[in-house]
Every structure is written in C-alpha cells, then in structure tokens.
C-alpha cells in the first residue's frame, strides 16, 4: 500500500470516529433526559433543542464535506494536505459543539429532582418578570431567561445573543447561574438580569458618563469608578427590585476579609467594601434610616478602610465620602436608553421599602407563603421580604431559608 493511501485511510478512520460521535448529538437525550428538556422548554417558552439541532446539523454537514474531501484525497495525493486540514478543523468544531451542548445539557440536568426543577422553574419565572416590565415598554426584545444551579459563591450570566463556543451558534436564552447558598435567597438573580437589561438598553455607558460627571472634580476617583459602571448598574437593578435584601445578600458574597478590599487590575467589580456601602447609601437615599445603617456601621467597624492596601486607602476614603452622591447618580440620573428616565422611574424601589413589604405581609396574611397566587404575582417582592426579614433577624435566618424553600416550591409551608 502506498504511503498516501495509508495516510488517507488513517484520516478516514479518524474522521469516522468524530463523525460517528457527532451523530450522537442528534439525540438531545445524550445530554439530558427528555423530561428535563421539556420542563425547561416549557418554562422558558423556547424550543432550545430545535435551536441546538441547527448547530448539530451544521456540524454534520461539515462532517459530510470533510468526508468528501478525505475520499477525494485517496485518488489525488495533491489534496491530502487539504483533507488533513479539514479533519483537524472538524475535530475542533466537534469539541466546540460538544462544549455548547454540554453547557445546556448541564444546565438542564440541574433540574433532576422535582424539588429543584420546581425551584428553578420559579426562578426562571421571576427572572423573566424582572426584565419583561422594563424591556417591553422600551420596545426592546425580551429574551427568555433560564436559570441553572452552578458551583461557586457568585452568580453569573451568559447573555442572550452572544456567540457560543460553536461557530455560528448564538446563545438563544439568557442563562443565569445561581449558586447553592443563594438558591433560596436569590437576589443575585436580579443582579444578573440587570446585566442583561443594562446591555440591551445601553445603561452601562450612560452610567459611566453620569459617574464621570459626578466625580469630575476628582479625576482619580472618576478613573476608579467609571470602569465599574456595568457591575454597579447590575447592583442598582437588584436593589430597585429587592431593596435591602439585595444589599445584605451582596455583603454575604463579598464579605470575605481576604478579598473585601481587593482591587485587581481591570476587574469590573467595585471593591467589595465600597459595593456594600454603596448599597447602604442607596437604601438611605430611597428609604431614609433603617437596618442598613447598622450594616454600614458594622462593616466600617469590623473592616476599617485602613485595612486596605495602603495605596488605595486614600481613594477608598474619598470614595466613601462621595457615596451618597454616587447613590443619587445611580438611582436618579436619566438614562437615554430608558427614554431619558432614571431606573427608579422604571422600577420603583418604594415597592420594596420595608413599609411596603410590611403592608404586603399584613394584607395577604399567612397565605402569602402558601398561596400560588402570591407566588405567581408577587414572587420578586416575596424574595425581597424574605431577604429583609432574614437580614433583620439573623438569629432566625435558618427559619427564613427553610420557609423560602417551601414557598418557592409550593409545598405546604411549616412557618406561617
């Protein structure tokens, strides 16, 4: 057997393996059960499998052209290099498509137990409710939102429309990762959907401009705060939707003394210490005095700014003095993408003020935690209320988490 036939045979063998493996992608059950896929598709109202099938079809089509190239190279040694390159490219594509499918498969697979499936369906629903009333009146497309349980301490989002790993594949759904410790106090979900809203409405750039104006007199502070605008916008969004609950939950995530003052170069996240205090400042601006004052004092007492890296202490202290102004900028500056209205005009933070939440609790009575009506219509405010009560009564936090666990899944609540 001549050498070129040998190489062509080997190429064909390799390709056979990869195309064979790719063929399995046709069946979505390779990645998750049909039941789980259907539950997800029903929850988010989007035929995810159909969309992913297009990516698989493209891969299989690519496999067919590669096969043709390999076969042609058997007869024509001059086309061997081309066939070799095609097989290599097919391998790479295979891996990219697999990564894409695995991502969705894993996301779907977190809906294994009935309990988790119901919880995540509820989170899908409140995530959608958190963006729909803002985006639709603005004439912006409202993407479906999918939540899944992931590792780590902080949530994240894979925004809709961004390019996925596989070439040509575009993410059809905003996919939000929720972490386990916040599964039943999911205010971070709204931070993530805030990213999606800010991206679609051009809020990040507008907020950066506004911060620039507020801090125009201090170029160093301006340079420090402007790059944080995207994360601040997301924090503000979580705040207007869930009030103090989002601030307390945020502090639980960033309150690691080893990283609280960390300021890595290029990190879009504000220094944790400032983030928490900005949250408290927003509460004060919206609601006046309240439990956030206690949180603020505790943070400043436990972690005085002097514990930060010496080079950043002056900036941190100067920032601290400007937090009220920054909070006002965040909440009250008109945003072009919001039709020149501030975010607080689109989502009124007063709906989740402690007094408004207390009124909700009083008027609905114990049914608030058991009735599917309240779960369906006031899901976000329930999260705000539960988070507020948990923060106010840290000694009963476990009880509140347990209560959230039952009301979110519609089980009969023990705590009433």
């Amino acid at each position: 057997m001549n050498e070129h036939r040998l190489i062509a045979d080997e190429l064909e063998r390799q390709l056979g393996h990869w195309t064979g493996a790719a063929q399995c992608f046709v069946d979505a059950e390779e990645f998750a059960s049909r039941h789980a896929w259907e539950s997800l598709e029903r929850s988010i109202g989007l035929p995810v499998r159909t969309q992913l099938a297009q990516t698989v079809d493209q891969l299989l089509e690519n496999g067919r052209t590669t096969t043709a190239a390999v076969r042609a190279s058997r007869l024509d040694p001059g086309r061997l290099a081309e066939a070799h390159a095609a097989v290599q490219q097919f391998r790479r594509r295979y891996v990219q498509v697999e990564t894409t499918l695995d991502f969705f498969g894993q996301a779907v697979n977190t809906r294994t137990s009935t309990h988790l499936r119901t919880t995540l369906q509820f989170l899908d629903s409140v995530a959608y409710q958190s963006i729909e009333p803002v985006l639709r009146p603005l004439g912006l497309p409202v993407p479906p939102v999918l939540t899944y349980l992931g590792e780590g301490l902080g949530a994240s989002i894979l925004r809709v429309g961004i390019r996925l790993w596989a070439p040509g594949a575009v993410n059809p759904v905003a996919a939000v990762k929720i972490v386990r410790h916040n599964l039943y106090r999911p205010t971070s979900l709204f931070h993530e959907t805030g990213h999606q809203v800010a991206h679609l409405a051009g809020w990040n750039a507008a907020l950066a401009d506004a911060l620039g104006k507020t801090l125009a007199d201090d170029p160093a502070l301006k340079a420090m705060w402007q790059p944080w605008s995207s994360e601040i916008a997301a924090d503000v969004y979580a705040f207007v939707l869930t009030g103090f609950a989002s601030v307390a939950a945020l502090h639980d995530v960033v309150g690691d003394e080893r990283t609280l003052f960390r300021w890595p170069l290029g990190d879009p996240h504000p220094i944790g210490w400032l983030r928490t205090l900005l949250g408290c400042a927003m509460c004060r601006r919206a609601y006046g005095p309240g439990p956030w004052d206690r949180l603020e004092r505790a943070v400043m007492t436990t972690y005085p700014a002097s514990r930060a890296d010496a080079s950043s202490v002056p900036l941190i202290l100067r920032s601290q003095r400007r937090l009220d102004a920054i909070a006002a900028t965040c909440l009250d500056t008109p945003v072009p993408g919001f039709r020149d209205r501030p975010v607080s005009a689109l989502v009124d933070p007063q709906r989740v003020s402690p007094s408004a939440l207390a009124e909700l609790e009083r008027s609905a009575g114990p049914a608030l935690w058991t009735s599917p009506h309240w779960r369906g219509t006031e899901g976000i405010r329930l999260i705000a209320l539960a988070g507020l009560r948990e923060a106010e009564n840290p000694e009963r936090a476990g009880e509140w988490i347990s209560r959230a666990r039952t009301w979110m899944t519609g089980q009969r609540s023990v705590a009433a």
Partner: protein
Amino acid sequence: MTVIDQAAGERLEGEVETPFAEDAATLETLPSTLGFLPWTEVTTPFAELLTGEAEGDGETAEVIAEAFESIHDEQFDEALAELIAETAEAAETGLVAEQPQQLALQRQQIADAHLAPIGSEAERCVQRFADHLQNLDVEAMAPDQLDELLGRFEVGELDVTPAGEEFIGGLIKKAKSVVKTVVSTAGKIGKAALSVLGPILNKLKALVRPLLQRVLAIAINKLPAALHEPARALARRFGLAQKETEDLVETEGDAEEEFLVSSFAPTPVTAGDPESLAESFDAALAESVLGGESLEQGESFGHDQERGAAPAASDELESLAAARSAFIDRVASAQEGEDLTPAIDQFLPAILPALRLGVRLVGRPKVVGFLSGFLAKLIGQWVGPKLSGPLSSAIVDVGMRVIGLEQGRPGDLEQEAAPAALAATVEDTVRRLSEQPAAFFEDEDLLQVALSEAFEEAVAANFPTQLVRPDLQIAPSLGGSFVVRHARTAYAYKKFSRVPEIEVTAAVASTVTTFGGVTLAAALRAAGIALPGRFRVHVYESGPGTTLVRLARLERIAGSASARGAHSQLHPLTIANAGVLLREPRLGVDAPVRFLASRHRISVGQRFFRLEPVGQSGAPDATPGSAAEAVRPSDGRVRSDESRGDVRLSLFFSEADAQRLAAAVASGRGGTTLLRALLRSAFATARGPRRRRPTAPRGRGRGRGRGPSRAQRRLRAGLAKALAEFVRTRGNEFVRAAQDPARGVTVQVHLRGVAGPADDADAGETPGTAPQAATAGSNGTTAVPAAPATVTVVPGRVEP
C-alpha cells in the same frame, strides 16, 4: 324514543337494493349496534322526567334526591375523566398495528392490569372507612362532630397512579357524603342509620368493580351497554331533577330544530362522558340510602345485568377507525378514473352507527345509495397519482408541517394527507346529512340540496383554502384547513393547520365565554396568566370518540410532565368566540348549550381553542392535588328546592380572586370591593341554569322575554341584603377562609321562602298561584320583601 324510521325503511327496502345486502358481516353487526342506541341515552339520563309523571311517594323521592345531590361531586367527574385517559394511554403504549382491532384483546388486558390495583386499593380503602365507622355512635353526634369525625379519616399514602389516587380520594369523599346523608335522613325514612350504613358502604364497595369495568370499556374505545339505565330508571321512579337546565330534553325533533337554527349537528362524542358515568354511579348509590331491595343489587349498577357479568360493549369506534384506515389505504392506491363507490360503500356502514342520528340513514338504503354515488363522484376527482398531487401539496403546506403528523417515515406525510382529508370530508358530509330533518330524506330534490350543502361545508373545513370556493372558506384571512390527527385510531380528532398569534387584552378575554359560562378572563386569571398578552391560538375539532382529556394529552398541551388537568386549557370556539379572538367567525361552531357546560360532555364536530402564551410565562403551580382543581376559575352554582322555596347558591372564588379580595379587605379598603364581587357573582348565578328539584314536570321555554319575576326580585333583594350584612359584619371570615391552604373560597348563601316555580314563571300573569304573592303586590313594580338568608364561608370549593 325510537330513532329508526322503521316504516320508511321497510317501504324503501322493497324498492331499492341496499348497498349492504351482500356484506354479511355488516348485517350481523348492525342489529346489535342499533339495539344499543347509545346516543339517545348519553346526555339525558333524566330526560323522561320532563314528559312522564314522577313515580314514588314524595318523601322517599325527596330522600333519594337529596342523597343524589349530596353525593354528586364534580371533582369525581374530573377524577374519572383522568382515570379513563390514563388507562387509555397505558393501554395504547407500545401497541401499534395496521388494524387497530387486531390488538383489542391485548389492549383490554393491559387496561385491566392498569386498573386492577386501583380497584383493589379502592375496595380496601372503602373497607377501612367502614371499619372506622363501625364502632362509632354516629347517630348521637351533632353534625359538626360528625363532620370532624369523618374529616379525620384520611386515605393516606396509596401505591397507585396519580389518577387512581384522585379516584380513590373521590370515592371516600362520596362515602363520607353518604354517611352524612344517611344520618341526617334516617329519621325521615324511619330507619336507624347505623343498621343501614354498613350495607350501604358494602354496596359502595361492590360498585367499584362495575364502575372500573366501565372505565375500562371507555378507555379502550368501547361503550358499555346500558350504562345509563339505572339513572333513567331512578329518574322515573323518584322524579330526580334533571341536570343543569330545563332545555335538556332531546328528541329527534329537537336535533332537527337545532340543526336548522345553528347548522350544527349535535352528536355527543362516544367515549369520555365521565359525567354520565358518575351520575349513574351516584344514582345507584343514592338509591341504596333507602336500604331494602336496592341494597341487594350487589354487583351491578342496575337491573339489567347478571350479577358480576362484564358489561357488554360496542365496537363502533374501533370499527369506524378500521374502516377509515381501509378507506385511506384504498384511496391512496386508487387510480385515476377509478370508481370509488365500493370503497365508500364499505366506509359508510362504519360511519353511520357512530353518529347519533346516523341510524336513521341506515334505515334508508336508497338515501345511502344516493349518498354513496354522490360522494364517489365528487371525491373521485381527487384520487389517482396525478390528481391527488395538487391536493397533497396544498395540504402539506408550512402550516401542516408545523403541526406535524404522527407518521415517522419521510414521504408519509404527503402520502397520507390527501386520503385522510378525503376520508374526513366523507365523514363530515355524512354527519351533517344525518342530522337533517327526516323530510329531506324522502324527497330527492330536498336530499340533493341537503347533500350538496353538507358536502360544501365538509369541503370548506377539510380542504386547503386555495382549493375552496371563496364564499365557502372558513378562515380566509388565515388560510389553512382542518387536518386529521391520529386518523387511523378510534380517538381521531382534527387540528387546524394554522396557529395564528394574537394579542389578548382583558377586555377581549372578558367577552369570551368558556365552559360553564365562565369568562376567558376569569379562567386565565385563575391559571395565573396576566393580560394583556400574546398567545398562539391552537384550534381543534372533536370527532366521534374524542375526549378533551385525551386530546390534551395527545397534543402535549401541558408537556409530558404535568398532563393532568391540561384539558382545562381548552375552551369552546363558538362563532362569537372565533369572531372576537380571530375575526373569523366561521372558524367557530355553535354547539347546543348542553355541550358548553362541561369539558366532559362535548359533541362531534365541536371546536375548541387553546391559548399558548408566547414567550416565557409564569411558574407552573407545583402544589400537589388535582391540577384542574388548582386553576379552576371563579364561578357560581345554584340549587333550588322549589317545593320548599329554598335556593342555595355556592359562589366560588378562584385562588387568585380570593387572595386579591382578601388582601383588599385586610388592608381596610376592600369592603366595597368584596361586596361588589359577591353581588356580581350572586346575581349572575341566580340568573343562570340551576339544578332543580321540581314539584311537577314543566314545559320548556318558560318565562322567556319577560322582566324579572316577583320571585327573582325577592331572591335578588334577599341576596343583596344578606351579602351586604355579611360584608359589614363578618367580612373577615372571607379573609380567614382565604388563608386556608385549600384553593379558593366558597361563599354559600341559603335563601328561604323564595317562591316556587309557579311564582317564578307566572308572576304578573297569575299572581294567585304564587305562594308568596298573596301578601304583596305582584305587578312587577311593587317592592317585594327580601327572602331571609344565611351566608357561610368555606375554604376551597364546595357544592351548593
């Protein structure tokens, strides 16, 4: 009532050669089917009441009627419907054959295996319940104590399917109702309650198997014989109230009249009438309250069967499916110019028995022969490789690809599309013709007119728009046509090939009426769907054998995970609804009112729609329990006992409405809101159809076109006064009831001393006949005293 025009049949037999004469098999099967006459009996178990005198002495009748009403439980109807659908699904899983009838036996065995554990568990539960009662002195207890005691008995964990669990739960609920009725009426019939309770519960236990046998029969597409006999017999004996409305009476004449008025052929679908099944069960049970002879009828529903013998069952649906399948094959392989008369001749005998009035045509061979020739000629244009091409490609358009067909192999869609459409056209033509007044069958010219009309309408529904004359098209702005789904099965139905996307506002939804007179707005609100919203509208049409529970499962309306209760998303597409929602009134059909009361009693050819929210929607309700129950919309029911002048209203507020009202009251601003909601519901309910226990048989169409009668005004005044007083002094009871985990809140109003039927009907004309009229003016304008009333609030949904 006889529906076969024997005289005409005999007359014609001499003159015309019947197309069925040579088919011995057909002749053998026909008589049993004809003798069976299921359609005349399905919808009106109590129809005789209206024409015949009630038998039985008054007091006994009263007891039976009271027992029947207290045993009745709409949740049990739901449970039966789900059990039938679940059993049907189990029986069909994995069974695929060219001829559905080949597998009848296997299907029956699987269904039997599915139901057997449910039966045993149900019997065990009833026995446990009976044991629970045995050592208790129920007679000595106050009603509250008895309630509490009965409430303490729980079914507990059961190792059965979800529908099985609901079914058993329903049985125990009935058992509890029986106990309450027996205890409360023991005095009236002069018997010690305890002595009859044991035998009655034994009877209930003994009825479980026969009931499940009927569930099985329906699930495997057979209709058990004499299903309704006991109910009818009971109605005759004791003068039980007929259900829902006085307009229920159903005769051939009525059907003709309905057809002439609405151009709609009212043929109830075969299987899946769990309401009738539950009614006959309740009737048998109610009768047993009397003890004595009725208790000895151990294992059967009535007097029509040998003890323990399996009920006979008919095969019309399976035969129709087989004939349709053969017709599709025959048409698919037909050549151009081929005479289709033999194929149609074989198809027609299967269609006719599955139609309520189809049997009238069986008795008219001449008409059938004419029909056959007519259809063969017109259908013939569309067969053969060349001719069927345009039809296939027109049907297999984008719309149809979207809805998909069940065939898996490529090319099947195209091959099957045209023959299935032709089969549907034949069936529709026959159905529409069969409902025509008898006079049309006796005059050739009239017959020709009726036939062309029936054919035109069938073509308009089943042929792609572009092939239909513009003036006949049912939805010109949408295009599309009805496509048969699962054409080769006994549960075939149709889906409209277009799924338009529409915006629904609260204003639109409140003008669309769904089953039971509930507005679409209330139904959507109860299901947690916010308006305005965008929806895709799926349109379906029922065939013989369709049940909405099964259709919802086959169409995966709720996805595979939560199929139970999905049928509550199907609403009737009446002409008005189609006009409001889709601006295509002809896409709707107006079914008679009795097919609009419940999702479990529908008619062949009736159309339904389902709104699928576009995009992401709310979280599904995860609470355990009946899914249909969870999303039940607010409604009101009324029951009247005219001999006593009593009226009882049950005003049910869905969970969504109850919570909203309770929150308004709790925040101190809701008194008016609550009163308004209560009055609106009460007045609407009082106006609507009611379950009556009449004093005497009545005519139809009483009191129409007149203003409110004196009794109605007295009723309204009583309601208004009582509800206003309730809200003022005890509104917090509503709030407390809303806090209960049970879904929704029921406000019950019991009015006494409201005038009887004569007053209701004839006030203003014959004042002297009304018991209450003697003391006050009766000219319709004078103020009337309000009827005294009591108001109670109960968590959850309670019957009046």
